[in-house]
């Protein structure tokens, strides 16, 4: 019996026991249901922006309605205009939320609270355009001269490096990758921790460890629950893509991401999950009660959050000192390195170093976790002090 076969058997058991459980089935149906049903509703809500409602009172320039509609079109927006007999009436409508802005005498914008800058631009350019047309007319210019004055030649533009049309989908891919990693670690890491804890609590662990070593047990659990997590992500992700494509809201340019970026994201996802799952397993070994589990469960979060934010920073400044270091040093690297690799050129040696370091870290945490496990299995109830567990568990 090779140790690897034992690991796979343990992984298989954890995977099958969970995937066949009613709890798993029900939660997956719920999530998929929500994504498929609620997704389009939410998307419809946000897909087509609501028209801006503009109120006018006092003097209004001729042609204001057409002008403001045209200038809104430049922002891909629509507007509705209604007029009020007095400023007071208009302000009342503003307070009630009937209109977004009130234009008084064609020269003052009144807001309920914070000004909306897009709407300010839309109304301002309409009013200014009308003013300019009036001035031009008073100067007695011909139709053609007026048109030339109002439509100046646009500026030409060129780039030193050809823009990469796939840059945005790539950035999104790496961002989504680290977001998924973040969520998976929190979810499945907890599962691993609870799984380890349950085995301790039900005392089955002594039966298992009479046949295999703690290291194999922990590795098997991490792999089994990880496989379950990936299936879960694929199902949820599939439902999400299905919803998006059907609602036709976002044009998901999968081809634009490219195989290399996709592979980078997936590989780093796996590396990151492995490290943190092993960490959760080690922490699970120190506790045997739910209350204590919550206490230690937040420890990885303390490390995940900086990694996640470094990853976002790397999107903007991939070569700044912190993202640069973070992309090499575990446990931050799984969040930062795929992002850097996507948005900038990272030397091969840096990638290699980073991979070696994270694998090393995972192995070390596994060893230490196994040792804690060994030392703490025979103590049930009280939270085991880390130092005591390490001392007691000197076998592994």
């Amino acid at each position: 019996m090779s140790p690897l076969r034992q690991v796979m058997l343990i992984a298989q058991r954890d995977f099958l026991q969970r995937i066949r459980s009613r709890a798993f089935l029900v939660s997956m149906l719920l999530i998929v249901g929500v994504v498929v049903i609620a997704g389009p509703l939410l998307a419809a809500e946000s897909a087509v922006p609501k028209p801006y409602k503009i109120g006018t009172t006092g003097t209004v320039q001729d042609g204001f309605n057409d002008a403001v509609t045209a200038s809104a079109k430049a922002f891909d927006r629509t507007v509705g205009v209604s007029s009020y007999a007095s400023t007071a009436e208009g302000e009342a409508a503003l307070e009630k939320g009937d209109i977004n802005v009130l234009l008084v005498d064609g020269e003052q914008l009144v807001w309920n609270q914070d000004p909306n800058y897009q709407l300010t631009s839309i109304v301002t350019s309409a009013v200014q355009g009308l003013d300019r047309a009036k001035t031009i007319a008073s100067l007695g210019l011909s139709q053609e001269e007026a048109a030339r004055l109002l439509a100046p030649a646009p500026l030409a533009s060129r780039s030193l490096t050809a823009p990469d049309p796939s840059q945005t989908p790539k950035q999104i891919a790496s961002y989504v990758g680290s977001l998924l990693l973040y969520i998976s670690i929190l979810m499945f890491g907890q599962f691993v921790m609870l799984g380890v804890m349950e085995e301790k609590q039900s005392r089955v662990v002594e039966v298992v460890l009479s046949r295999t070593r703690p290291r194999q047990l922990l590795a098997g659990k991490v792999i089994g629950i990880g496989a379950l997590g990936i299936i879960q992500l694929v199902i949820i992700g599939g439902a999400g893509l299905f919803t998006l494509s059907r609602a036709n809201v976002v044009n998901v340019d999968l081809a634009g991401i490219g195989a290399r970026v996709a592979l980078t994201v997936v590989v780093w996802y796996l590396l990151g999950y492995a490290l943190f799952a092993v960490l959760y397993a080690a922490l699970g070994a120190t506790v045997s009660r739910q209350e204590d589990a919550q206490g230690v469960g937040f420890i990885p979060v303390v490390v995940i959050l900086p990694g996640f934010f470094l990853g976002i920073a790397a999107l903007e400044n991939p070569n700044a000192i912190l993202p640069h270091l973070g992309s090499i040093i575990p446990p931050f690297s799984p969040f930062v390195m795929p992002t850097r690799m996507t948005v900038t050129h990272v030397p091969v040696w840096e990638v290699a170093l980073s991979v070696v370091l994270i694998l090393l870290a995972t192995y070390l945490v596994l060893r230490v976790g196994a040792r804690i496990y060994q030392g703490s299995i025979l103590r049930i109830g009280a939270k085991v002090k880390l130092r005591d567990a390490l001392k007691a568990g000197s076998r592994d």
Partner: protein
Amino acid sequence: MLELSGLRKQYGNVTALDGVSFDVRPGRVVGFLGPNGAGKTTAMRCVFGLVRPDAGEVRWNGSPVGPQEHLRFGYMPEERGLYSKMKIREQLVYFGRLSGMDPSAASSSADRWLSRLGLADRALSKLEDLSHGNQQRVQLAVSLVHGPELAVLDEPFAGLDPIGVEDMAATLRELADSGAGIVFSSHQLDLVQDVCQDVVIIDRGRVVLAGDLTDLRDRSDYRHLEVRVDGQPWAPSMNGIETVGDDGQRYLIQKDADVEEVLHRARQSGAVTSFSFEPPNLSDLFRQAVRR
């Protein structure tokens, strides 16, 4: 053959094992006895590497025990526990495979155990849906499903009803007859006397008595004396006689005591209705060995 050799284990300033050595030979059932806290569980855990001794060694057929050897052993821990939400047949197959059986061998062994324990119709039940006694049976089956060459059972009789005790005893005897070595701990001394051939008595981390039970009884310096005169317990007033048990009916007497003389005195006091002069039983040996 399993050899425990000079095992020592210290927990803080508590000495759990203080140089424990004994053997478990193939085909023999070894009763492992001792007061609470004597070190029985710690010694058993050492066999599986669950506890690493500070000194000493556990050997199997002459070489140190490692992960590969553990697969040939079966272990029933004192604190019972299996996967409560897993179906029992699946559970047996899983543990069989974890010990290195291939899937078909594990399946057929699981089925054999289920029908033998009368649980064939519960094969698809979850462990948690079984009665306490049946859960115990499954626990035993899990420790033996892979046909181990050595079974280490920590308090296998604890919590069993009389029928369960009979089943367990029969299973252990059969297993030994098939050539496996068995060591089990227990507090029920009458039971141990019936089931085992060898005993090891441990006290405060030291082996205080070990060997073939019949031998030990014969070699004892004492004899167990039980006399009833006119239906009442009777004791001779002689030197070196000691009351055992709290019913005041049984005595230990020197091996070389003059039996004729005892019987003669008994007859003088009335009609002797029963008289026995036998090697001491296990309870007597135990009491003497762990005398405080």
